[in-house]
């Protein structure tokens, strides 16, 4: 699993987004590579930026429906901490844009998919003016399904592709199988869809595949989405103070672990270790590279990468990591909420999800996320993640009517906080999927099951965080992002969607497994150094040269 993948559905609430200023990320202005862009045929590697991207990108028209209480800062999401006044909801889609056509949509789904004729789907179809039928697939094995579906002649009209599934030959398949949305969205054309026009440009930039605008992006904050959570209530009860350095953490972990009482200090903290030691972001292959002293360096070649693995190995060797984490079994968040582990790292959205779930049973449950410290206990160096993480495509075989219906759906789903469209998309049907208690919308059991995933991915506004029922969590999340954002830097290929040539796409596939072997003591650091040497020999150095050419042609986003 990549650091951007989460164990449950990444929804508006689970998947964070940002309002980072876009075009700034797109430096350069020089022509795109000869190898990329091209026509509508697939298999194009490279990227598109600068002047060529500007011709393709939609115009940006900021939304002013509701002003956030916590504006975006340092790349954070915007935060809404006030409850929605249900009597004063605004309208962002004044008339139905759909033509009533059919759309088959394939999407990942974490959990048990609802029946296709449920009240929520029916109401959404009615409001948008389309007839969408969902083919929800298991999110945990979505990559396997996706590869097979794209190789078939029966591709659904609309396909959702998470960024962490853009591996192997999938990017070239996207170029070959999905429609160019440029004729409908580029430049001022996007103004026909006001909510999509408010999507930040750097998210659109990520939606350029093979030289064409092919996807509706799910915008995300570029601040790391992996937070180290701790049991604030247990810390207070036991009198623990928050560790401020890796050494302090290890010392605390040894003290806090009581295996006999079935309590371990932490779960697997490899991702947090990468952040502590300033390892280049691992969520997207392009982010593995950065220009240092005039030379492109890959994360796996850096000292900090080995240091992070070594620190994580020490945690395992000290016996402070939950045994089920060593076995990669079960759910880390469940062990955390059950009090079997006191620290775990996961998507920032767990802060709300776990708190909301636990507060119904344990009123004193409290979790926090500690600020990431540097290797010496000082400030960390964090690396930006990509500003869009999930993409929705429309089949190249789709008719113009279907494409327009799809855009109507995306525009509706991208409605901002405080609108009627938002309420329907995020909460479902009043009385069925949610009820209003003390002026706050509260999901019913049916709503929790049905209003989940699906429409979360087919269009989203700029990144925001809003939890009307737990406003303090939204505030804490945004403030954490803002603090961490201050230490966040962008690596050389930030913001670009890069399709690597097929011959190198699998070159680094085994590193994640090797990392896990090393931290669990099954392999040694020397094995990693050998693997890096093999990687260079098998094409790593050629890939470096290829990326170097990209950098020469497109300029760097690093700032």
């Amino acid at each position, binding site marked *: 699993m990549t650091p951007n993948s989460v164990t449950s559905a990444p929804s508006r609430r689970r998947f964070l987004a940002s309002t980072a200023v876009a075009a700034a990320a797109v430096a350069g202005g020089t022509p795109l590579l000869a190898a990329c862009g091209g026509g509508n045929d697939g298999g194009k590697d490279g990227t598109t930026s600068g002047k060529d991207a500007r011709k393709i990108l939609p115009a940006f028209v900021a939304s002013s429906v509701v002003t956030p209480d916590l504006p975006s800062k340092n790349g954070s999401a915007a935060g809404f901490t006030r409850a929605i006044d249900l009597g004063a909801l605004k309208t962002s889609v004044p008339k139905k844009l759909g033509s009533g056509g059919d759309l088959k949509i394939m999407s990942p789904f974490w959990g048990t998919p609802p029946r296709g004729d449920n009240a929520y789907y029916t109401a959404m179809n009615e409001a948008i003016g389309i007839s969408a039928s969902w083919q929800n697939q298991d999110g945990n094995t979505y990559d396997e399904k996706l*590869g097979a579906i*794209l*190789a078939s002649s029966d591709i659904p009209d609309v396909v959702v592709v998470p960024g962490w599934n853009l591996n192997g030959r999938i990017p070239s398949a996207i170029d070959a199988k999905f429609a160019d949305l440029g004729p409908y969205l580029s430049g001022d054309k996007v103004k026909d869809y006001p909510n999509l026009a408010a999507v930040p440009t750097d998210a659109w930039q990520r939606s350029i595949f093979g030289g064409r605008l092919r996807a509706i992006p799910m915008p995300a904050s570029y601040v790391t989405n992996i937070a180290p959570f701790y049991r604030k209530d247990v810390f207070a009860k036991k009198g623990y103070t928050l560790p401020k350095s890796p050494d302090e953490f290890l010392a605390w972990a040894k003290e806090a672990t009581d*295996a*006999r009482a079935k309590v371990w200090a932490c779960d697997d903290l490899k991702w947090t270790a990468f952040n502590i030691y300033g390892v280049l972001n691992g969520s997207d292959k392009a982010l593995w590279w950065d220009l240092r002293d005039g030379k492109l360096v890959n994360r796996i070649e850096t000292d900090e990468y080995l240091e992070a693995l070594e620190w994580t190995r020490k945690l395992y060797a000290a016996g402070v990591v939950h*045994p089920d984490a060593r*076995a990669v079994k079960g759910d880390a968040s469940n062990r955390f909420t059950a009090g079997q582990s006191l620290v775990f790292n996961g998507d920032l959205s767990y802060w709300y999800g776990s708190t909301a779930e636990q507060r119904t049973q344990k009123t004193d449950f409290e979790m926090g996320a500690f600020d990431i410290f540097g290797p010496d206990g000082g400030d960390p160096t964090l690396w930006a993640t990509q500003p869009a993480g999930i993409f929705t495509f429309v089949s190249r075989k789709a008719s113009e009517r279907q494409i327009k219906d799809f855009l109507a759906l995306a525009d509706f789903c991208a409605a901002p906080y405080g609108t009627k469209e938002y309420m329907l998309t995020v909460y479902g049907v009043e009385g069925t999927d949610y009820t209003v208690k003390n002026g706050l919308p509260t999901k019913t059991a049916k709503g929790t099951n049905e209003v989940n995933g699906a429409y979360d991915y087919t269009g989203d506004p700029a990144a925001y965080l809003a939890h009307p029922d737990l406003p303090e969590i939204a505030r804490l999340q945004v403030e954490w992002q803002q603090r961490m954002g201050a230490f966040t830097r962008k690596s050389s290929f930030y913001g670009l969607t890069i399709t690597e040539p097929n011959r190198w*796409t*699998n070159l680094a596939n085994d590193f994640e497994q090797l990392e896990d072997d090393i931290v669990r003591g099954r392999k040694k650091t020397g094995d990693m150094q050998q693997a890096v040497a093999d990687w260079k020999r098998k094409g790593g150095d050629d890939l470096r040269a290829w990326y170097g050419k990209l950098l020469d042609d497109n300029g760097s986003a690093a700032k």
Partner: protein
Amino acid sequence: MTEESAGQREGKPAFRLRLRRDRTLILMTLPAIALLLVFTYLPVLGNVVAFQDYDPYLGDNGFSAMFLSPWTGLENFRRIFADPGFWHAVQNTFVLFLLQLVLYFPIPVALALLINSVVRPRVRAVAQAVMYLPHFFSWVLVVTVFQQILGGAGIIAQTLRRHGHQGIDLMTDPGIFKFLVTAEGVWKDAGWGIIVFLAALSSVPPDLYEAAAMDGAGRRRRMWHITLPALRPVIALLLVLRVGDALTVGFEQLLLQRDAVGPGASEVLDTYVWWNGIRNQDFGYAAAAGLIKGVIGLGLVLTANKVAHLMGEQGVYEK
């Protein structure tokens, strides 16, 4: 003299007559033959991608992409043989196969003999049902049960800790992993494996046992001279089939536990093919690995069958 009349003279009815006589049986087998053609023989043609740099996204669908993908000759095979990971997977596969052969294969035979010795039908039925049951559990459930018992936070480890000892974690120890998966296999499927042996035992006439008892043969003698000879052809047949399947030592079970012990201990040919073909989308490479596995499997089954013939058994097919 026509062939037909010659056939009739030898007592064999003419082909047309046999066709008419056996038309019901032939009709009954047609769906099975069609199924075999469509789902077994037709996909064999897909092995051509082993000789290509196959890209399933080149055409409108995976099938037309076969005609558009470039030919690479034996390049995929060269890459496989040069990959230490492949040889490691082969080694793991054979070690697991031998372990399963020695530790797993005899157990259903022993259980069948035990069950067969139970006289009371009700006790026998209950015992059989209890033994069959785990076969219907999914591997996910089986691995979870083992994790709850033998894992680092499992029942045994916690009991040991409560009594002042060090906890154990058998689920993440690469050194014993192959024994662990064999144990899981025994627990799950040994009961199911006794069915065919019980069927063979049910064909032994009871008067054979009675006659032997009259001649003074004890239980051991009766088992040695009557029961085991009755099982010998079945054991030989299943052994030949098992050897032919030597390179198939489990897939889902191993994939589920890969992260717990790492690929060093758990990678076998099937997971190697899946990892490269499905996860890495290197279909040509994976098809080549699968083809190698198929050819080796064919060689093994032919060899095992020859050995069975030399031992005077029928094997999978007659000489």
